[in-house]
């Protein structure tokens, strides 16, 4: 297996060829905030939290969707990146209706964690209080669009791992919304296998089990990677 070496915040690391900058950063012991990225799913580079700066200048690079190359030198935590990350999280909070106090994911929410990590204690942008709805038509699960950050993890896990492609995105811009089937109530979509993978990977409380109430959601974001490894490399967790 060929290896590339690069520098992350001045520290040399070696990663297998084809690895992403995110993997390189982790190999260097650097944690980058992520929301849309999830091991085992195709990266989309949408949340912009894992942006890193090349020491040679140029555009900022989404670490999740950029392949590490020999001789690269990146910075993950410049003052500018910190500012941008905080603003990004503020934009997430301002565009939805995120009320931690009575959210099913309170305490186990990646958006909340990221807000803490970047030091966002309030949004400087006015909250938009969008009018969204809740789809509780599925017998086991529900989707609260107010809490959705459009990371598309549910779309990808359902398409790439479960192979059902129940979810997709409709509309555009700030009107974007996750839809089930052909924009039907989730419970009416026959393609749904009720596997719950979308609920497991949702970083917020948008997708949840109906039996869970405030702060009772415990997602399993590690599952797509486990399943992929099992299928592609025949490696099982209990081996």
């Amino acid at each position, binding site marked *: 297996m060929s290896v590339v070496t690069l520098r992350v915040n001045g520290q040399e690391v070696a990663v297998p060829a084809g690895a992403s900058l995110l993997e390189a950063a982790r190999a260097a012991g650097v944690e980058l905030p992520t929301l849309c990225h999830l091991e085992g799913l195709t990266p*989309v*580079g*949408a*949340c*912009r939290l894992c*942006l890193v700066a090349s020491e040679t200048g140029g*555009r*900022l690079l*989404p670490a999740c*969707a*950029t*392949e590490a190359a020999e001789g690269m030198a990146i910075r993950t935590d410049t003052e*500018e990146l910190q*500012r*941008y990350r905080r*603003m*990004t999280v503020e*934009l*997430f909070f*301002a*565009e939805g209706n995120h009320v931690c106090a009575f959210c099913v994911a309170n305490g186990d929410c990646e958006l909340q964690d990221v807000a803490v990590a970047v030091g966002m204690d*309030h*949004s*400087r*942008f*006015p*909250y*938009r*209080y969008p009018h969204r709805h809740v789809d509780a038509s599925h017998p086991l699960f529900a989707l609260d669009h107010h809490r959705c*950050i*459009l990371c598309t993890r549910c779309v990808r896990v359902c398409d790439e791992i479960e192979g059902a492609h129940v979810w*997709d*995105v409709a*509309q*555009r*811009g*700030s*009107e*974007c919304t996750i839809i089930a089937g052909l924009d039907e109530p989730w419970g009416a979509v026959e393609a749904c296998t009720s596997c719950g993978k979308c609920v497991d990977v949702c970083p917020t409380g948008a997708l949840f089990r109906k039996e869970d109430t405030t702060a009772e959601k415990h997602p399993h974001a590690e599952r797509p990677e486990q399943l992929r490894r099992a299928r592609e490399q025949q490696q099982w967790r209990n081996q």
Partner: protein
Amino acid sequence: MPVLQPETPSRQLRCCGASGCRSAGGEALLAALRTARDADAGAAAGLTIKPVGCLRLCGRGPLVACDGPEGTRLYGAVPPEHAADLLAAAREDGPDAGVARAALEPHRLDLDEPFFRLQRPVVLETCGQVDPESIDDAFAHGAYDQLRRVLAELTPKQVRDEVRRSGLRGRGGAGYPTGLKWDTVALQPPGPRTVVCNADEGDPGAFMDRSVLESDPHRLIEGMAIAAYAVGADHGYVYVRAEYPLAIERLRLALQQARRKGVLGRGIFDSEFSLAIEVRVGAGAYVCGEETALLLSIQGQRGMPRPRPPYPAQSGLWGAPTLINNVETFSAVPAILREGGDWYAAMGTEGSRGTKVFALSGAVRHTGLVEVPMGMPLRTVVEEMGGGVPDGSAVKAVQTGGPSGGCIPAEQLDTPVDYESLLSLGSMMGSGGMVVMGETTSMPVVARHFMRFSVNESCGKCVPCRAGTVQLAELLDRFVEHRAETADLERLEELCGMVRATSLCGLGQAAPNPVLSTLRWFRHEYEAALREPSHCEPPDSCTVGADGETRGYAP
């Protein structure tokens, strides 16, 4: 060759049938001319009435060019009642030619005006001469001659060398060197390749590509075919926006004719080269003009940009190396091959060779299409060719590059029009829309207009563009409505910087440009829009906007 004047003048009336003149009554005029001719069959014999493409001065449509041995006369804003006069004037030798000409005199347009005189038609060389719906007429004007020659005489590499030598850069806006892009696609590992023409021209105030498609579609097809040969592709797509129905109709007709005549299909001109071209129609999304989104849309998926690399030249349509150029870029290719890359490179400036088509509109006397050498001062285009603001007042600014570009202030009008100069002014070449603004235009309003455009057209994939543009538009509302605070100016600049640096695709990255450029050149207008401290309401009511919506900054 001067603009609009045919090489071999025969007695004919050329009627513009492009969208601009159609909307001004061009079809009624053409019908009236044909009726008048039929009613007067004997006298009008030998006179051709020919529907053609854009005759440039769109603002004075419907336009008719009257050719004869004595030269070409152009008439504008001609009502159908003048059809008989036009026929009589065109006949020259007829008894009432003089009377008819006198009647038409108020509609006469001077072809020696700078608007026409300073044009340098290359892409548009047969636009307005050739019947866009007739491949035989296109053949008569030299269409497909270069394709035939290239296939018989040149290797793909020789074609690419010629294009590289021409210095042609992408006319869609970013200005990537065309020859380099062709090489990148051609030199990918063996396998299928595709050529794609981006005809999703969506910038407000831009109608160059529409005019080419409506006026001379065979030129585009020939350019694409030469490109396909040069990079080794046997399949092509033209992605046209649905808002261009006439362009789509004429392109489809042209493709059908080209297939029938064997200039598309298998073994073109008895060579080994085969090419099929399909039309794909957009569905109203501006973002599909972004190349990665465009490719997804062709594949039948949701048009959303993806991070690059890999670039489409490496991995594009269905994973195959894909060459994407816009309409104007492909349409420049036949002339480059005919006259040579050095000929093309001799026009324009060091970094920006050749000519560029611009769509002039807004507060300008002469609205329409101009093709000029790169490097021409903006002032020449706007004030001499465009004739300045109609009421004679001063030009305040020129907007180039649409929602990705910026406003260039009047004091910078002596800047040469080329890629780098416009970038250094905080605007960009863009695809070629040029909107002239007079003294009465408010710059915060202009910035908000473009920001609202970006809000509506954001695909919603990445958060800086999806949510950042919404916040920017709201901040701009505060300036337009005179309720902004000093801190809003800082917020505006900070958020612009963030959206620019962190958005996923070029559209998001460029969305703040209209704000940043107006802030740079017209900052006083933003400052003047700040609410006077003495007018400030008590702190409680400050968080409620004019529409009663809460806009507080506290969580």
